[in-house]
C-alpha cells in the first residue's frame, strides 16, 4: 500500500495546530481547535482507504480502479457530527459571552476553594469535624462486615 506523504504531513501539522488551540482557555479557540482536529482525523480516513483511485461509485463493473467507498461514507458521517458539535460549542461560547462578557473557561468553584485552603495550609472543615470525634455509628458495622 502506498501512502501519500503530503497527506500524512498535512495531518501532522493540522493535528499539532488543533491540539495547541485546544489547550487555550478561550472557548472560541477551542472550537477552532476541535474543527482542525476533526479535519485531521478525516484526512486519516482518506489515507486509511488506500491509494487514491477514481471516484468511489463509477458506472462500470470493474471495481479495481475505484476508491474504497466505505471510508468516504464514514468521513461524511464524521463531518456531519463535527459540524453539529461545533455549532453547539459556538452556542455555548455565545451564551458564556452573554452571561459573563467573555468566553474563558473558568476553574471549578470547589477546585478554587480547595486551592485556597491549600494556600492557607488548612484542612477542610469536614475533616476537622471528623477528627473532633463525632459519634460514628457506622464504625461498628465497618469492622464486622468488612473483616
Amino acid at each position, binding site marked *: 500500500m502506498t501512502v501519500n506523504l503530503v497527506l500524512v504531513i498535512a495531518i501532522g501539522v493540522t493535528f499539532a495546530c488543533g491540539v495547541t488551540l485546544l489547550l487555550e482557555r478561550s472557548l472560541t479557540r477551542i472550537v477552532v481547535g476541535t474543527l482542525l482536529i476533526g479535519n485531521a482525523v478525516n484526512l486519516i480516513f482518506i489515507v486509511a482507504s488506500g491509494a487514491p483511485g477514481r471516484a468511489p461509485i463509477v458506472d462500470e463493473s470493474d471495481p479495481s480502479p475505484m476508491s474504497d467507498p466505505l471510508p468516504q461514507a464514514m468521513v461524511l458521517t464524521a463531518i456531519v457530527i463535527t459540524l453539529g458539535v461545533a455549532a453547539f460549542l459556538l452556542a*455555548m461560547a455565545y451564551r458564556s459571552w452573554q452571561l459573563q462578557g467573555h468566553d474563558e473557561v473558568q476553574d471549578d468553584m470547589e477546585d478554587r476553594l480547595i486551592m485556597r485552603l491549600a494556600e492557607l495550609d488548612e484542612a477542610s472543615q469536614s475533616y476537622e469535624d471528623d477528627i473532633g470525634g463525632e459519634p460514628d455509628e457506622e464504625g461498628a458495622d465497618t469492622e464486622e462486615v468488612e473483616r
Partner: protein
Amino acid sequence: MTADSAMSFLIPLPVVLALLGAGVCLALGQNARAQRVISFVTLSVIVAIAGVLLWAADKDGPQVVYVGGWPARMGIVLVADRLSALLLLVSAIVTLCVLAYSVGQGIIEFGRDTPLSVFYPTYLVLSAGVSNAFLSGDLFNLYVGFEVLLAASYVLITLGGTGPRVRAGTTYVVVSVLSSMVFLIAIAGVYAATGTVNMADLAVKLQEVPEGVRVVLQLLLLTAFSIKAAVFPLSAWLPDSYPTAPAPVTAVFAGLLTKVGVYAIMRVQTLLFPDSPLSDLLLWAAMLTMFIGILGAVAQSDIKRMLSFTLVSHIGYMVFGVAVASDLGLAGAIFYIVHHITIQTTLFLVTGLIEIRGGSTSLEHLGGLAKAAPVLALMFFLPAMNLSGIPPFSGFLGKVALVEAGVDRAGWLTYLVVGVSILTSLLTLYAVAKTWNRAFWRPRTEEPDELTEYVPSSGTKSGEPWSSTAVTSVRSLPRAMVAPTLTLVAFGTALTFVAGPLFGITERAAEELRDRDPYIQTVLDDGSAPGSKVVNDQAEGR
C-alpha cells in the same frame, strides 16, 4: 429458520422507536402533557422489547439483524447477545424510572406547563444513543451511538444555560469531543489494518495483524473508551461536570453513560483482543481508579460531588473484572454493572430529594433529616449500604465474585488489586457513613458555617429552571418524585433476591463472551446459508 429470525425484527426497535418518539415530542412542542405520554409509552415499550430480547438471546444465542439487508461485512449489523440485551433491559428500566422522576420534578417546579419543551425529545434521543451503542455490531456504528448519546447529553448537561452549567458543560463537551476524535483515529487505524469495521469480522482478521499494530490499535480504543468510562488517569472531567446538572440528568448520566464506556471496553477486550498483553495495564488502571476515586469521595463535603467520586471509584471494579477476563471475572463485572447502574442512579435521585427536603446538598448545611423525613432516610440508607457492599446486598455479591476471580488468577499484582478493592469498599462505607451521620443523624444546625460565603457549590440561582442547589424553601417531599425513587430502591434491593438467576445469566453471558464463536458465527453467517441452524444449536448447548 427458527425463533432466532422471528425475534430479530425487534432488535432495531429500541433505537428506532426512541428516535421516532423524540421526533413526535419535538413536533408536539408546547403540549407538555402529550410529550410526557409519548415519552412514557415509548420507554415502556422499549423495556418490554428489551425483556423479550434478553429472553430470546438467553434461549437461542445472539440475535442478529442486517440493517437494510446488506451482507454482514459491508452494512450495519445490530446484535443482541446476552450482554447487550441484559444491559439494554437494565438501562431501559432505569431510564423509565428517571423519566417518571423528572416528570414529577417538572410538575413540582413549573406546574403543568413545562417551559423546557426540549427536555423530553432530548431524553429520548439519549435513550436511543445508549441502545444503539449496546446493540451495535460494528465499530463505526458504535461511534455513531456514542455521538448520538453524547449530543443529547451536551444539551441535557447545559439545560437552562445558567453560568455554572455552561462552565461545567464546556469541560464535558470538550473532553467528550476529544475522546470521540481518539475513537475515530482508532477506527481509521483499524480499517487501514484490516479493511473492515465489523466486530465479528475484526475478531477473525485482527489475529493476522502484526502484534505491534494490534497493540497500538488496542491502546487507541482503550484510551477512547476509558475517557468515556472515566477510568483513572482520564477521569478528572467527571466530578467536575456532573454535579451541576439537574438531579434526574445527573442520575441518568451517572447510571448509563459511563457504563456504556465500560461495555465498550468489555466488548473490545473480549471479542477483538482476547488474551491481550495489556491486561496488566488494565489492572493498574482499575486499581488506581478505585483508590484515587474513593480518596476524592472521602474529601468531599457535597453529596453530589461525593457520589460523583464514588462513581469514578466503582468503575474500577468493572475494569478489574474485565482485566481478569476469566469466566467468573467477566460474570462478576457484568453483575456489577447491573448493580451499579441501578444503585448509582438511585443515589443521585435521592440526593435530588434531599435537596428539595433539606434545601441543599452540602453536608455543611444539612442535618436532622432522619427525624424530619424517615422515608427519605430509608431511601438513602438502603442504596448507600448496597453501594458500599454490606453483605445481603447485591454490591457485596458482585464484589465477592470479583475478589474470588482475582484470587483465582493469582499473581502479586492481582492480589494487590484485590486488597485495594476491599480497602475501597471500606472507604466507600466511610464516605457514605459520613454523609449519613452529618445529613441525617446530627441535629439540624441553623447557623450557616463560615465557608458558606464563598461556596456557591454548584450554585444556580433559585427560580431558574431546574435549579440544582439553592432551593430556598424547605418543602415536603413530592409523591410524584418519591414513587419512582422508591421503585428504584426496591429494584436495587430486589437484585439481592434475584441474584441467583441474574448471576446465572451473567455467567452465561461471560461464557459467551469468552467463547466468541457464537457471536462471530451468528454475525458472519448471513442467515441464508444452511449452517445457521448449527450455530443456533451450538449456542443452545452453552
